[in-house]
Every structure is written in structure tokens, then in C-alpha cells.
């Protein structure tokens, strides 16, 4: 247990690695500088498992109402991500009202982005069998049974205790990198610049 991983806490788990042909070290350096110069950064992502308005925003708001902060907990992995490194031009929290992305922020090869600050290296073990999905069509499913196959990211809630099973793999994940989500938590991206 630590400040991030404690019962009833909300966290967004994500596997990370090379993205849009840029290696992780370069991404971290770039995002750290974005946060320093802008006050926040945008962590690009894709897929449909953490849709900005139907998953991440209501999830984060429900924890915000309880006075809690959502942490983005990232597990480093080896990956090839061949998406074109196209730089998004605009962002929107609701898909209707669009704003220009600040010049100091570059989000590459992504349809969505998490709005983050306090990006830092931090190592701890995340037992996925002590988490559950609190929102969406998989609501109630244990994190250890949800994060598998193509599902590489999830909104999760920490349980009081891990599920007791005889499963050989208890799905203990090593987290390497952490950030804090900032309102509006997740946004849609469009355009190129």
C-alpha cells in the first residue's frame, strides 16, 4: 500500500512504450517539459477501452466528488507503435466545443489524450486482483480478469483486499511511471499542425 494504491482509490492503469515511433524515454522528457512550460501535459492514447467522455471523465468526476485524485499508473513494456507521428491541432472535452492545443504541447499519433501533471518515475506493485472496473460494460469485473489480451488500459478502483483464488498468476504488475489526472481528465483530439 502507498498513497496511490490504497482501498477505494481510483486509478487509471495503462501499459506504455514506444508510441508513434517515438521511444518512451523521449516521450517522458517531452511531456515533462510540456508540463513545466504549460502547467499540464497531454498523454496521447487510442483504442476504445478508455473513451474520454463515456469512461474516463465520469470515472474521474465520481472520484473527484469524493475529494480524491485519480492517478495514472503506467507499466513499461516493449512495444512497436507504428502510427504516424501526426501532431494533433485541437482538443475537446465533449467532442463538440474545440480548442487549439497550446503550441508548447505536442500530441502525436493519438485520437485521445489524458490531461496530466506531476509526471514522475515511481515504482510499486499493483496487484490487479485487488482492483475492479467501476464503470462501463465491464463494471464489476476484477482488474486481473479484465486486463488481458487487447485490453491494455483501464479505469480501476482499489478494493479492500485481493480476491482469494488458486490462480497461478495473481497478476502483480510493476508500475514504473505515475502522473496525476487534471480536469477535464481526458479529451478528444483532431486535426494536424
Amino acid at each position, binding site marked *: 500500500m502507498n498513497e496511490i494504491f490504497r482501498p477505494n482509490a481510483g486509478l487509471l492503469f495503462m501499459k506504455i512504450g514506444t508510441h508513434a515511433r517515438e521511444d518512451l524515454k523521449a516521450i517522458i522528457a517531452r511531456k515533462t517539459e510540456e508540463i513545466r512550460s504549460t502547467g499540464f501535459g497531454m498523454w496521447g492514447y487510442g*483504442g*476504445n*477501452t*478508455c*473513451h474520454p*467522455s*463515456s*469512461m474516463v*471523465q*465520469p*470515472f474521474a*468526476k*465520481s472520484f473527484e466528488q469524493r475529494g480524491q485524485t485519480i492517478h495514472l499508473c503506467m507499466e513499461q513494456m516493449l512495444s512497436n507503435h507504428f502510427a504516424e507521428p501526426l501532431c494533433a491541432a485541437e482538443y475537446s472535452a465533449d*467532442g463538440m466545443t474545440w480548442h487549439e492545443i497550446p503550441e508548447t504541447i505536442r500530441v502525436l499519433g493519438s485520437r485521445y489524450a489524458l490531461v496530466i501533471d506531476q509526471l514522475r518515475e515511481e515504482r510499486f506493485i499493483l496487484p490487479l486482483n485487488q482492483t475492479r472496473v467501476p*464503470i*462501463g*460494460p*465491464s*463494471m*464489476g*469485473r476484477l482488474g486481473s*480478469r479484465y486486463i488481458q*489480451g*487487447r*485490453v491494455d488500459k*483501464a479505469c480501476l478502483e482499489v478494493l479492500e483486499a485481493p480476491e482469494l483464488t488458486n490462480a497461478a498468476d495473481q497478476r502483480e504488475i510493476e508500475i514504473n511511471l505515475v502522473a496525476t489526472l487534471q480536469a477535464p481528465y481526458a479529451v478528444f483530439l483532431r486535426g494536424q499542425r
Partner: protein
Amino acid sequence: MNGPIGWISKVTRRVIPSPTAVQPVPQQSTLPAERRRVDLRKAINAVSDVVQNRPRPLRIFDQIHMKTGDMVLQSEMIADWADQKRLAFIGDGDAISVCVAYLRARDVLNFGPSHITVFDFDERTVEAVMNFADRERITNLDAQLYNVLDAMDPGERFDCFYTNPPWGASNNGESVNVFVERGMEATGHTGEGVVVIADDDELEWPKRVLASVQQFSAREGFYVSRMQRKLHEYHLDDAPGLKSCNLYLAALPGNKASRQSGAITDPRRLENFYGLSQEPRVRYVRARRRLDYGVAHEDEYELEFLEVSGE
């Protein structure tokens, strides 16, 4: 039971050695005498035509498409269930309506509804149905732009309804009940319906939703006539293993509507309609006009020409 699944799956197994052949096979005593075997290849290719024509789903409205293999089986089941009846689809992003009509029009099935109308708030879906029906000369298939929160005026009464609505994970199935209510109204509260909703043994919310829908249906004078469990899979990245069932409803004898159809404005029914904190705000999804419908969009590609010698 003349179980359509059992029937088509038997057919499927037998067709595999020679998928292109339409072979007359002696009628099985358990099958209706007038029905013949399904040519699986023709059925899959017909559904493929429909999938090609279908607009892409909008996740913000919980539009999630059924996988194609399950669409083939589902279409056959629905065609069988609604044979020679007037069938209303209350929303249909999957395009099961088109599959059912097209399989009959192509003579892949020799049974099916006498008429199908799709009521959907997505103009892309409505236009896709109408364009497909026009192109394939399917005269018993049409579609109307309709938001489920508005009063239902079906014109001529339908015999049965089909709906695969937002599954109501965050509102205890109330969004399902809204769609079911419109379906019941389309039949004058005297018909039958199929409701396609989540079905999962591990999760709690699908069980609560199933209970909620059954309770609502009972209050409206309908009973559950049968249930086909865990039939369909979806292109749903955040719940890839989640399946849905067919819940069959039928009106009790002599059932009557307890009220006239009206707009649904009760905030309690609208809360979390499309998911947590996702209240309905949009009356219609309007289609953008484009001339390249059905082929690659011009903004997807650019041409790099061969070099011409001498230039």
C-alpha cells in the same frame, strides 16, 4: 422447439464440405415442412453486403456492433420468429433489420417478416437502410428518423418489435425499458418483442438489468416467453467477452396500453441513459452529405503517380 439455432447450426455443419452447393436435402421431421436448408456461404456473403453498407458506430451513444457471424445466426432467428409479421426495429445500428430483409429478398431464407420498419435517431442509419433497400429493390423495408424519447406514432400497428438498446449498466436498465416501452407501443401493447441485452454470469449489473426489464415488462402486461442466453459477441474493446441474450416478450391476452404514448422527460429515466453521467442531449445524429458513400473517403488517401519518361 423448432430452435433456429439448432437448425442453422446443424445446417452449418453439413454445409461445410461443399459451401457453394445448394443441395436439396430431405426435410427433417422437426422442421416446418415449407422451410429449406440455408446456404451458409450465401447467408454470410449477404450479411457481408449489409455490414459493408453499415455506418460506423458512435460510442458516445453506446452504438456497438454485433460480430458478423452472430449477425448471420441472429438474422435467421429473427426472420423465423417474425415470419409473415410486421416487425418494428426500435433502433438498429447493427443492421439486423437489413440482414433479415435482404436474406429473404435474396432467397437465402424462404421465410421472414412481411414488412420491416426501422425507427432510429441516427440519420446515417436511416439513410443506410433506405439506400440499401432502394439499391436491392427490397420493397418491404423502410426506416424513419425517430428519437426514442419522443412519443411513438407507428402509423399502422406492428405485430412485433426488436430492440438492441443501450444496455443500461449505469441506470439499472432504465434505458432498455425506454426502448422496450416504444416497442410495446408500436405493437399497440398486443404483440411480441425481442430484447437484446447483456448476459454475463460474472457481472452483477447485467443480472440487475435483466430483472429490471422483466419487472417492467410484467407491469406493462407482457411476460417472458423464452430466453436464449449468451448468444452474441460484439466489437467492444472494453468488454470483449461480454455477450448478450435474446429476451422474448409477449403480451398477455387482452392486454391494453395503460396510457397514451408521450415524450419521456422524467429526469430519473434519463439519468445515465448512455452510461454514467451520459444523459441524452442529442435529438438526431444528422448525416453529412457526401457523394462517395460506400467507397474510400477522399481524405483517406492521396495519389502518387508513376514517373513519366522524358519529363
